[in-house]
């Protein structure tokens, strides 16, 4: 939660201080800030001035935790992350979008799911359903680099009728 607030603050500041293009795109859906790892944003803090290596490879120096399991056969980092402006995501049209609008990127492939998401059918809404509901970004639930859900431990089954927790 705190990480999220920090990254949001950074995002907000970077937007106002540097007036980056696309930073003020109209908010179609009220979403909480994207779940960026603490201290990782802005990306340009490290990537600025670094040479761009477009080769598909195993990352050894940084981002070693990222194992791409998302159509990895046909895709690589720079298909979604803009090589020149690392603080932005890149659509196929070449248009740059903020991390807070990543759903615009996801919908390029996942059209029907995006449609369900806008209607509130895919994904989870919380809070107030009439008016003030909050949309979660795709990446709040799906790791963009490995979007499939991991199995989780279920909560315990109910006690049976004659379990000692159900008799006096």
């Amino acid at each position, binding site marked *: 939660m705190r990480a999220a607030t920090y990254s949001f603050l950074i995002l907000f500041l970077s937007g106002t201080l540097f007036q980056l293009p696309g930073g003020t795109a109209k908010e179609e859906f009220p979403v909480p800030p994207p779940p960026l790892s603490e201290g990782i944003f802005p990306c340009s803090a490290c990537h600025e001035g670094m040479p761009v290596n477009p080769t598909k490879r195993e990352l050894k120096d940084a981002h070693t935790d990222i194992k791409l399991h998302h159509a990895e056969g046909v895709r690589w980092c720079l298909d979604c992350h803009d090589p020149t402006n690392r603080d932005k995501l890149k659509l196929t049209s070449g248009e740059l979008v903020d991390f807070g609008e990543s759903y615009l990127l996801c919908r390029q492939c996942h059209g029907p799911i995006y449609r369900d998401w806008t209607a509130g059918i895919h994904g989870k809404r919380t809070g107030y359903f009439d008016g003030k509901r909050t949309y979660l970004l795709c990446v709040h639930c799906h790791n963009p680099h490995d979007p499939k859900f991991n199995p989780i431990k279920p909560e315990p089954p109910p006690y*049976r*009728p*004659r379990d000692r927790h*159900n*008799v*006096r």
Partner: protein
Amino acid sequence: MEAWRFFKKTLALVMKGSLAYYAWCFFLLAIVFIGLKFYTAQLDYGLIVTNMRDQVSWGLYIANFTYLVGVAAAAVLLVIPAYIYHFDPIKEIVVLGELFAASSIIMALMFVFVDIGRPDKFWHLLPFVGKLAFPDSLLAWDVIVLNGYLILNIYVPVYILVKSYYRKEPNIKAVVPVILLSIPWAVGIHTVTAFLYNGLAARPFWNASILAPRFLASAFCSGPAIIIIIFQVIRRISNVKIANEALFKIAELIAYAMFLNLFLMGAEIFKEFYSDTVHLAPLTYLYEGLHNHKALVPWIWASLSMNLAAFFIFLIPKTRRYLVTLNIGSLLIIVGVWIEKGLCFVLPGFIPDPLGEIYEYMPNMTETAVSMGIWALGLLIFTLFMKVAIPIEAGTFFHSKHETRNE
């Protein structure tokens, strides 16, 4: 004043008796007391002290209730021939039969009373005072018809007995309409009780239209079978004359009723097993066991064997007209029908439950003790009824000085 004097005399009558009478009454009282102990614990802690759970939410109490409503309804089996066909040997014992029906209804109502979780809210069931959901709820219907039947079955014998007490002939005009009314009413109480289950689409085992006729058929076996036994006891311990002929007649009627009961049962078994739909599950549980849960299987086959054996005993004139076999047959029916329309009827309605869960319910100590307490209390009430009714019928207890005064 007169009523008070009658009450005092009655009280004196029931307080005096033979050693056997005292022993019997105290024996029953002891069981009642044990039942009461368990019931107060149930009141205190809640129904969690029983083995009932959400999966099987009715158990032994409601099973006994169902059985006793049937027993009570069977009083008409005595009333019909006695009043419509003027069948003499039965006429003199109708009063006793009706008092037995009244005792059964009282027991049935007590079983409902111990089953409901909030007896302190019982007043919600009172029409006008509470909010009785008539005519939507079949339970509301049952409350009305059972209490109505109780009143009818108390009115008729009390009227006849009071008249005899004053040594007067009963006024036929005052009693016959009530008797005639009690015949359809008896059919009514058991039909309504059957509909109580029958109307639940959630429970395919009960949701069969054959239920009400089957209920009536089995009731006309168990009720009269109990009466056959009781009448023999009464004629042994008092000087009331009950002819063998009357008992044989009742036994013959039981044979017809049992045939109908077995036939309807067979029809249901055929339909369910041959069509073999998802609704077969409760019947499979009952007759064969389901997913290795077989608690009811020995019970239903025992019950079926008893009913079949009793049917042949009562069908064959030789065994029907021989007191030893007659009594064996009666006992077989009393127990057989109790199993069949008690636990083996109530439980398969819940097993498997609507989401397929199987919880094998069997009553525990609390439920058994409370149930036995109610049976004992019912028998005690019937004993006291008899203690007063028999001397009046026999003409030894009557109004001595005020024969001509107001009644």
